[in-house]
């Protein structure tokens, strides 16, 4: 039940009654009249309990795009329901309209279109639907809140999608797919074929040529069916914002580009998100299914404000993966976290796998290092130089363990990681 402003106004106007008729009886009569009007209004208002809610529409949306969710209001009662309706969503779902009017005749259905423009990644669940149906006098209303469950998963934006065609072209160049006469630059033997004018004479297979009348060349292709394990660090260092984006989101973007590229190159890609326990895992996804499952697994991830457990991460990895693979660890080059956590475990990891560490650097540090002019700027520059020096030292140390390090600002991390992968592939190191 809900009262309306009209009732308050009537009661205020009723205050004139005792001025002209100063008696308890007049006032009691006024109250009785108001109470009777409220009771009549409640009795005659549309029955909100007879309403049923159904939903349809988008269940997932990329961050930055809008989703539309339809709420269907069905009236099972015998009277028409005219009501105000609010479909309640969390604030970051940015659902519009906030409230709307519905007019559902008995036994019919009406649609309410909601538009969601989520501002953050993750799952956004509808909280409840509230209807308020006022009576014919507009003095009182029946109100009911009833859940109508629906969840919209807000997926990471994947802004580095635009780099994918260029990287795929580079990949095709490696495989030699698009120009027949260029010898594939891979290291894995593909097939034998007849020599064509223009082929590199170094690739003539003399033994096969001897067996046949024709000159035969070997063709090469990059290695295929290698395993790539993407590891997302969701610990405290991933919460830091570079620009206005958490480091975790930049890492996700890079992981998605690498995943898309590697699956097209014929490699198997797995994903693990870890801080002190497994937050998400994608394993054994098929080539076509990989990107959607990665995006789904990553959507609800949030940075946890705890120190990552490097030992747990390494054992979680080692227990799952038997064959040699490329482990891409997306983390931050934080001296304390890496030196105390990861470095002692690296020999175990590098003995079995090829390890690549991708870290998002902060352009703000570069700006500070270039600052000159007054004393504050110079101290800023000194602190930034020191941070960069530590980062360089850490990178050198990691490289001494045979680890590949990709350290790039947020705008370049995804293509830089893809390039590093392509370089490894071309060199046949996978």
């Amino acid at each position, binding site marked *: 039940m809900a009262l309306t402003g009209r009732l*308050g106004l009537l009661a*205020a106007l009723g205050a004139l009654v005792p*001025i002209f008729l100063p008696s308890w009886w007049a*006032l009691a009569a006024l109250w009785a009249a108001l109470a009777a009007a409220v009771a009549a209004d409640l009795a005659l208002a549309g029955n909100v309990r007879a309403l049923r809610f159904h939903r349809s529409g988008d269940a997932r949306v990329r961050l930055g795009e809008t989703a539309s969710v339809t709420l269907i209001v069905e009236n099972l009662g015998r009277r028409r329901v005219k009501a105000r309706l609010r479909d309640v969503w969390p604030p970051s779902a940015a659902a519009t309209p906030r409230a709307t009017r519905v007019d559902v005749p008995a036994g019919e259905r009406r649609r309410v279109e909601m538009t969601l423009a989520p501002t953050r990644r993750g799952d956004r669940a509808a909280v409840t639907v509230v209807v308020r149906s006022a009576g014919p006098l507009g003095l009182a209303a029946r109100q009911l809140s009833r859940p109508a469950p629906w969840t919209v998963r807000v997926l990471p934006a994947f802004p580095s999608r635009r780099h994918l065609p260029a990287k795929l072209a580079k990949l095709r160049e490696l495989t030699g797919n698009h120009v027949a006469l260029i010898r594939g630059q891979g290291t894995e033997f593909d097939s034998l074929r007849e020599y064509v004018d223009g082929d590199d004479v170094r690739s003539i297979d003399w033994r096969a040529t001897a067996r046949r009348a024709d000159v035969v060349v070997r063709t090469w292709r990059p290695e295929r069916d290698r395993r790539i394990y993407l590891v997302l660090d969701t610990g405290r260092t991933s919460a*830091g914002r570079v620009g206005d984006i958490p*480091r975790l989101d930049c890492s996700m973007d890079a992981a998605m580009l690498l995943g898309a590229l590697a699956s097209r190159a014929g490699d198997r890609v797995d994903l693990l998100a870890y801080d002190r326990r497994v937050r998400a895992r994608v394993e054994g996804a098929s080539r076509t299914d990989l990107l959607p499952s990665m995006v789904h697994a990553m959507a609800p991830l949030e*940075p946890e404000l705890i120190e990552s457990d490097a030992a747990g991460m390494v054992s979680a990895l080692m227990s799952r993966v038997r064959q040699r693979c490329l482990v891409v660890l997306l983390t931050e080059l934080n001296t304390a976290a890496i030196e105390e956590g990861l470095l002692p475990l690296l020999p175990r990891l590098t003995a079995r796998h090829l390890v690549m560490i991708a870290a998002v650097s902060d352009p703000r540090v570069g700006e*500070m290092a270039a600052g000159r002019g007054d004393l504050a700027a110079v101290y800023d520059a000194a602190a930034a*130089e020191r941070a960069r*020096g530590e980062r360089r030292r850490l990178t050198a140390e990691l490289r001494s363990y045979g680890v590949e390090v990709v350290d790039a600002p947020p705008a370049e991390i995804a293509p830089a990681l893809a390039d590093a992968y392509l370089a490894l592939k071309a060199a046949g190191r996978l």
Partner: protein
Amino acid sequence: MIQSPPQGGADGSGSPAPPGPTAGQVASRRFRSARGIVLVLLALVAIAVILAALRPSVTPQDLDPTSPTEGGSRALAEILKQNGTRLDVARRAGDAAGLASPGSVTVVTRPERLTDGDIDRLRGAQGDLLLVQPNRSVLRELAPGVHRAGTSFERTADLDCALPAARLAGPVAFGGAETYATSGGDGVVTCYRADDYSRLVQVRDGSRTVTVLGSPEPLTNAHLTEEGNAALGMNLAGARSSVVWLIPDLPEAGAGGDATLSDLLPFGVKLFVLEVLVAVALVALWRARRLGPVVAEALPVVVRSAETVEGRARLYRAHHARGRAADALRAGARERLVPLLGLPRSTAQDFAFAQEIVTGVAHRTSYDEAVVGTALYGPEPADDAQLLALTDILDVLERQVRQS
């Protein structure tokens, strides 16, 4: 990494901060902004002081036997005293009743200030009464049989009765005066008639004589000398051996009765207030009922990634860590110089290659080895100016090596 609100100061630390204002500048700026208010307050205080100083300590009252103003009655009081009549001034009805004796006349002025209790006390008092322009309740209680009839605006009235005091006075200038009707009876004397009603009435009320005067003007300083005013006043007030002049003070607040505010409010007003309260409660209920709940949501932490670097810069600055700052700047510069010289990167922080690096840089720049050596490996800067100079020379070296 600590979660903290973004700070404006941290963002601006890269750009040159404006020099802070001195305490004097701050004070003068605050004074300028508050000047108008201060001046207005001072002016108000000054006006209040002047008004308080100009205000007389005692307000002169009409018909006050101690007041020498035009409306006062000091002249009459002095004349009465000179003639040997005793004059007591009472400011309260109770005092007047106590002072009154069988041989006295009580002059009752300003009757509008008398409460019902005061009138009762006066009725119980001894001696004669002279009521000056009484109101209805005083007239009803103290002068039975006399009723207010109307008002006369004739300046003077001629003698038309046999009252001794009137006879001695002759014509009297009343100015505007109230006129009275009497219900007749024994011992009723009416004087100075206008349109069948009289301005001066004398009645017997038991043992006392009650005289009702329709105008205060004959008794005031301004009009005492006109016509027979002085004689009338003297003979009415001074008819007995002593005079009690009652000029009541304003009744004290709350002294008039024990009625509370709710007793004085009409019943309808109380019901009105009740109904307004009901209306307010209904409006509150209307506004309190939300269309749906408030939705709480966990928000992500906001930590800037460069926060630790900025914090370190502020620590350096706060502790004037010139040595550490210079070391970091030199290490950074060497790191960028070494590849330009064609040396491996690992030599940058290796002191064994110091001489080689210095020679290489000096060879490609306009500076000699001593200057380059001091710049790249020198001691800690002695003051802030030297630190700034160090960054300048490092920048110059780097630029020259790059361009060579």
